[in-house]
């Protein structure tokens, strides 16, 4: 099949990738850029484990073709850690027990970051709405709610410093 050259800006790095037209953004990033943090749990956009930010929008990357992301700015879970320092959302998930098996975690953290970017002081109901596209089978979400609340507090404290 004829390959197509596209440009992906992933986590601040520019990549030129020759892709086949049917490759999803998720498989392009996982298999060809070898950024395997984003996970495929369903391939049909139902579980959210592949969530990425594409030009600032939270998307399930298993439902987007690689070619559609040509020229886009993409952030994956690998892009949240800056110079080895965890993002506060990542830190909060560890501290509050929001991580169990870890498979939903990269997508969940992207959704939590997306929520906190638009609403820095969410209540429980906002969190339940903001994470509704991401399935977790291990936690019952309770400690994920705690993690997002804690991340909001930590971000507020940092902003005030």
């Amino acid at each position: 099949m004829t390959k197509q050259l596209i440009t992906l800006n992933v986590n601040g790095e520019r990549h030129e990738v020759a892709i086949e037209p049917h490759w999803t953004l998720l498989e392009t990033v996982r298999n060809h850029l070898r950024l395997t943090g984003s996970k495929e749990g369903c391939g049909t956009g139902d579980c959210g484990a592949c969530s990425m930010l594409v030009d600032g929008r939270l998307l399930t990357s298993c439902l987007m073709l690689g070619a559609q992301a040509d020229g886009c700015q993409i952030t994956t879970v690998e892009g949240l850690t800056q110079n080895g320092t965890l993002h506060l959302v990542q830190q909060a998930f560890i501290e509050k027990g929001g991580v169990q098996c870890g498979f939903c975690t990269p997508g969940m953290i992207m959704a939590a970051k997306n929520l906190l970017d638009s609403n820095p002081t969410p209540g429980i109901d906002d969190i339940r709405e903001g994470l509704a596209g991401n399935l977790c089978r291990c936690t019952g979400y309770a400690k994920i709610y705690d993690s997002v609340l804690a991340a909001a507090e930590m971000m507020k404290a940092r902003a005030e410093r």
Partner: protein
Amino acid sequence: MAQETITREQEREREYRNVGKPVQRPDGAGKVTGETVYADDIQLPRMLHAKMLGSPYAHARITAIDTVAARQHPGVEAVITAADLPDYKLNASNRRGIIFPQDEVLFHGQPVAAVLASDPHVAEEALGLINVSYEALAPVVDPIEAMKEDSPLVRSALHDVDRSEERGHVTVDVAEKEQSDKPSNIASDMNFKRGDIEAGFAEADCIIEGTWRSGMVHQSYIEPHSTIADYEASGELTVWTSTQAPFYIRDELAQTLGIPENRIRVIATEVGGGFGGKIYLTELLVAALAMVVRRPVKYIMSRREDMLAATPAPFAQVEMKTGMKRDGTLTAVQAKLVYDSGAFPGAPMLPGCLLAGGYYKCDNLDIKGYEVLTNKVSVGALRAPGAHNATFAIESHMDMMAKQLGLDPLEVRLKNAVEEGDPLPSGQPYPRIGLKECLEAIGNSEVWKRRADSARSLDTSGRAGQDASRRRGIALAAGGWMGGLQPASAICVLNSDGTVNVTVGSADITGTNTSFQQIAAEVLNVPLDMVSVTTGDTKTAPYAGMSAGSKTTYTVGRAVKLAAEDMRRQMLEIAARRFEAKPEDLEVADGVIRLNGAEEKNLTFARLGKLSTNFAAPLPAILGSGAITARKMAPGFTVQAADVEVDTETGEVTVLGFALAQDCGFAINPMSVEGQMQGGASQGIGIALSEEMLYDSEGRLLNANLLDYRLPTTRDLPPIEAIIVEVPSEEGPYGARIVGEPSIVAGLAAVGNAVAEATGARVYEGPITPERVLRALGKI
């Protein structure tokens, strides 16, 4: 909740430095950054991707398979059918004992052929070029119909079925029943009897009868089954797989493929959720493919394949009749439990029968169990397999009898609850258990207190500002689980810098390695970060049973404790010799061994490490080992309270609050124990309200995706209140007992009771969907 944790922490502060305290998981950092490697993240040189062709029929005979076009498809490396497989020991009674069916297909989605290619898309395309000729056979879909004498048979030659594997799962002595020679779809049956059931009903003031059905559900781990196998020229087989049971897989592969166990390396990769569903499934298939092509082969199930052809949890029907005296004494429990096993034996009939009569003291029992074959995917374990089905029946009956007699549902349960020494339906006595303590604890939950408050304010018919069509109900249910038992071992070594490595063979699916770190650090009286725990593979790790049956901390934790104690003893003996003192006069703290009363006489772990590892060092390397066998159960009980609102116009049930109290013996890591409790409870709520695999009359699965098979989302789940109860087990480390499974058991019953409380109508079938609620209300 937070208050309670602090109180417990304060108590523990005096007693222990590491165990009993909430600890962050060391594997958290890798998981939040995406660094953690799961099976699908592994790419090996020359690796091929496998795609499977599944049967479109639930029951059919394969008459021919034409693979010519698929083999010629550009990029295809191999097309493999039953005829192309290496020799293996076929076991027709076990799903994993048949790689591809040779003639008879037994369930929709059963794999019949594989395509291998470097490009997974190419393999997928070529599947469509395989031409399988099927002769369709009558599928048997309904287990109740399947039990009838004149039912068509699910499969031929059923009387040849080898039942050795099922017997392996039976943890109590059960009299062997003679099986009839007449072919039947009933794979096995059993009966627990105690006292005189008719006398029990005769003395009852209240008798309730009901037929309770609970749907087939899927574990729905977010990571699908994922396996890579490589068969090297040396004859060594390596398998990377997302499993809870590396040693079990090794043993099964060795037996089936005729390879010695010491030439098989099973590497349990990080498990992206298992819940009993990731024991042993695709490993033999992928190993066999790798042996054919002599290249590494990766097979990642699609979500659809995982729903169609993994090992979900069974549908069950429980017919129950119970009797109670006016004073609340339970006098009789009669039940007939039918589990739909799918196309192979292995349904959890035994635990279902044990639990149906196992929560309460009752002199008269008659509990029958049947395991029935159908042309559906064969079932496996899901967190306390079989338990929620039986619990739905008995716990609904307890509420119904209490209501009819005007008794308090909590008091009635407290009056009858089993205690240490009471017999299980099998006759075996319970060891120390904490059901009563859980009942007392749930009374203090926020959810249950709201019930008392709402009773006072007479506001059970709706929240303020809501219309009267919305009804609110709060109710509870108990549940329990016996847990599994298997031997375990661990090793503990001193490094040259004084830090400690612990190696175990158990897959860490729940944070158990964090608990082991706490245990070893407690024994050695060092800060947590001086200990690191690794799960080895089956060639490097000491043996451990499968991480299933809630037993990992209970069994491997004991082995870790012994290994650390062994290492500590060795270090003390060395120090005692050097100080010319007795080991008992020494104390160990923070990596330093000191002679009491002589501060200058001390030896650090780091110094010991160097003395036992350097060139020409005077001491042998320091290695502690621990090995145990576990024969005594440490059952875990739970009591769960659900606060629901029912929209009587739409039938929709909303969970407003959910609390569970669970006896975990001793919470080595309360944060992870709470996480297990909340996670299991959420799965119980899913079973209660939305999860059900739906088959049509031809035995085809209708909802093989996560949109139509609906897991609880954040919108469905309020924060779940977890109350840890600690009634120490006799043998577990620091009193710990089983934790992982009990939390799933009571959700369906608790929600069912709450819906009845809210509406006055009983729903006898789970999940309690809007349609079933409206039917119960007589609206449709």
